[in-house]
């Protein structure tokens, strides 16, 4: 290596930077199409279906191009990058509106020919902040029950049946359980389910109040499901509700006959169980029938000002909310909020099996409480409290209460940072 070589290499390097630096920041590609940068968190089995829609749009016309990014931590990336279009969960929509990161989606919907009555009530509710639609409703994804028909003949509808099922399975093989509670992961759905099925409203003055006595009782029931009834194994770890459903008891792992999990796992469970896969509504674990979950909405970044990009976004929405296109999303297992697409699904329940089943659940769907920084307010609950519920045999209600006080204190402080 002599100095000449190094000098050459370095100048090549500098050339690369200048090229790299130039390639950022402008919104038109080489093809002269106006680019719309679209980011979402669809990294599961549903991602491929959204990609199919985006590709379809890009080849359907020659004026615009949607460039899609699918990222696990897409919220972080959205905050630090330059994106025009973003998928936001119903629970985060208010936060993003308050933080001035998104704009009113109404005008875009109008241009795309979409009106409020094109969507179901749950969908409209999911996209609305302060009486305006800040997110175009995409889907509602409730907690979904999958079951293994080799072990359960019929979908359990309440906890008593699950408990009985658990006892039967345990007598056959001590590695077989009725269902699994995760230690962490999708635990938000389990927390909101305990509230919804007991008629408890967690939101209070903009923060989540977990210290309500009957809520603590409800959570203790989860603890009993593991340590008293043996319906679920203990300490299943991250995403344990799903992982345990995919294991096999013959190999010495703990296996469950039923899982209550996210519909995005549909591809994976379908692959494993094929014809033996059963799908059912969220069973009543507590007092009343109710299902919870979350919703996806599509929002426009506050930074979008370019008229061409605006037109492109409307054009994309128009394409997306055409039943035959959005049906792709239903095929992934998600349940669209778009009524015309729902009609299409009802006509073909074979092809859109999961969406058709989940659509029936929407009558009892209870949306998560609306608070600023919902995910952050839930953090302590998700990372600490549910782990304690499923891993500490001797947990008392008092001990739980002091944890709930910690979680509530944190939630209050987070709400105050608004």
């Amino acid at each position, binding site marked *: 290596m002599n100095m000449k070589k190094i000098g050459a290499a370095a100048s090549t390097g500098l050339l690369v930077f200048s090229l790299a630096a130039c390639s950022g920041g402008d919104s038109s590609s080489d093809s002269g199409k106006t680019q719309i940068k679209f980011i979402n968190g669809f990294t599961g089995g549903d991602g491929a279906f959204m990609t199919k829609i985006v590709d379809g749009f890009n080849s359907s016309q020659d004026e615009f191009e949607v460039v899609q990014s699918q990222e696990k931590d897409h919220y972080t990336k959205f*905050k630090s990058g330059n994106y025009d279009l973003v998928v936001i969960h119903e629970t985060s929509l208010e936060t993003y509106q308050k933080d001035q990161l998104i704009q009113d989606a109404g005008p875009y919907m109008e241009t795309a020919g979409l009106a409020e009555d094109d969507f179901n009530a749950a969908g409209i509710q999911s996209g609305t902040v302060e009486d305006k639609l800040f997110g175009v409703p995409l889907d509602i994804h409730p907690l979904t029950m999958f079951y293994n028909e080799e072990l359960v003949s019929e979908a359990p509808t309440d906890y008593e049946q699950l408990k009985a099922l658990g006892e039967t399975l345990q007598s056959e093989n001590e590695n077989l359980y009725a269902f699994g509670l995760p230690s962490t992961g999708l635990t938000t759905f389990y927390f909101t389910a305990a509230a919804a099925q007991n008629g408890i409203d967690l939101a209070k003055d903009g923060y989540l109040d977990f210290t309500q006595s009957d809520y603590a009782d409800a959570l203790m029931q989860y603890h009993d499901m593991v340590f008293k009834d043996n319906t679920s194994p203990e300490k*299943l770890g991250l995403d344990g509700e799903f*992982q345990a459903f995919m294991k096999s008891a013959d190999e010495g792992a703990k296996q469950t006959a039923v899982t209550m999990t996210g519909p995005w796992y549909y591809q994976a469970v379908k692959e494993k169980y094929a014809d033996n896969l059963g799908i059912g509504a969220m069973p009543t674990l507590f007092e009343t029938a109710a299902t919870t979950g979350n919703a996806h909405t599509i929002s426009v970044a506050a930074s979008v000002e370019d008229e061409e990009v605006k037109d492109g976004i409307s054009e994309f929405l128009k394409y997306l909310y055409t039943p035959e296109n959005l049906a792709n999303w239903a095929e992934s297992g998600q349940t669209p909020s778009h009524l015309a697409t729902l009609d299409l699904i009802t006509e073909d329940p074979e092809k859109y099996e999961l969406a058709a089943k989940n659509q029936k659940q929407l009558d009892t769907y209870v949306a998560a409480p609306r608070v600023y920084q919902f995910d*952050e307010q839930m953090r302590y609950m998700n990372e600490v409290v549910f782990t304690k519920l499923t891993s500490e045999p001797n947990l008392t209600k008092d001990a739980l209460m002091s944890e709930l006080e910690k979680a509530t204190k944190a939630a209050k402080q987070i709400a105050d940072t608004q």
Partner: protein
Amino acid sequence: MTNKSKWLGFIFVVPFLVSFLVFWLIPLLYGIWISLHDFRLSVGNNGFIGLKNYVDILTPDTIYNRTFMTSLKNTLMFIVLSVPPLILISLGLALLIEHLPKKLKTFFRTVFFLSYSISVTAVSAIYLWLFGANGGYINNILMKAGLISSPINWTGDQPYAWLVIVIATIWWTIGFNMLLFVNALDEVDGTLYEAADLDGASAWNKFRFITLPEIRNISIFVMITTVIASFNLYGQSLLITRGGPEQSTSSLIMGINTTVFGNNQLGVGSAMALLMGVIMMLITGIQYWISYKSDKDDLAKPSRKERKRLKRAVNAGPTNVNQHPAATIDKKERKIT
């Protein structure tokens, strides 16, 4: 020196100075400035608030205090758990390699250094699945061997979660420290051992009175750099345990990340980062001071070997210095460590 050379010297220094200014000094000052403001990641600056961010972090029972203190405690825990094995095991491996037949030395050195070429994310992926709780490979082996009766929840239970992170870290980074020790052992003057052999010294005494003093400086260097590396724990915790169970392996950098990207508080996050930097500098300073103090009691003079080599290097002139960079290195060593 001519004017021309002044000018040329200036040109030579400019690339470094510009880079240092733009990517180090300005960010440092900007970071201090941000930490004194209510600075949100999403909308930017909401005004000057003085030391409020620092006060919030250091006031018991605020969310930021809990994030910072929990993750600081966890990070210190990791340092206590990981640094001793990272030093002792690497020294052990180096001693082992030192005593192997010549032909095999290179092979084993390569094997133990191999995992250093794997990125932290790949290391985490391997250990995450290897130590799966429900039906993972390690559990299956232990169950089959009858060593455990029920599966161990490796990544979801303490102390196992720390154990997995520490094992993964040792496997991943031990090779680097090992190489430093291998080299230091190579440098030890063989005649010292020969003299000791004539005196009939035991292996332990040879190690204690010859090897250890000779590798003292490199050991201090390894200790300081290992502590700094362990302070920066991030990837293993993030990917293997996700900071769990119950936030017990959440590291400082994870906590700062949550504050900046989760809570949107770039101001508070910058203050945390500065505090973390100050703590690291303090701990490094203390280590430096302790080793310097004990060095003084040690009659700080160059060892025989060092003197010999210096003399050789000076006599032989520049062409030979290449082969003996250590002549200068020992000086540096005393400067830093």
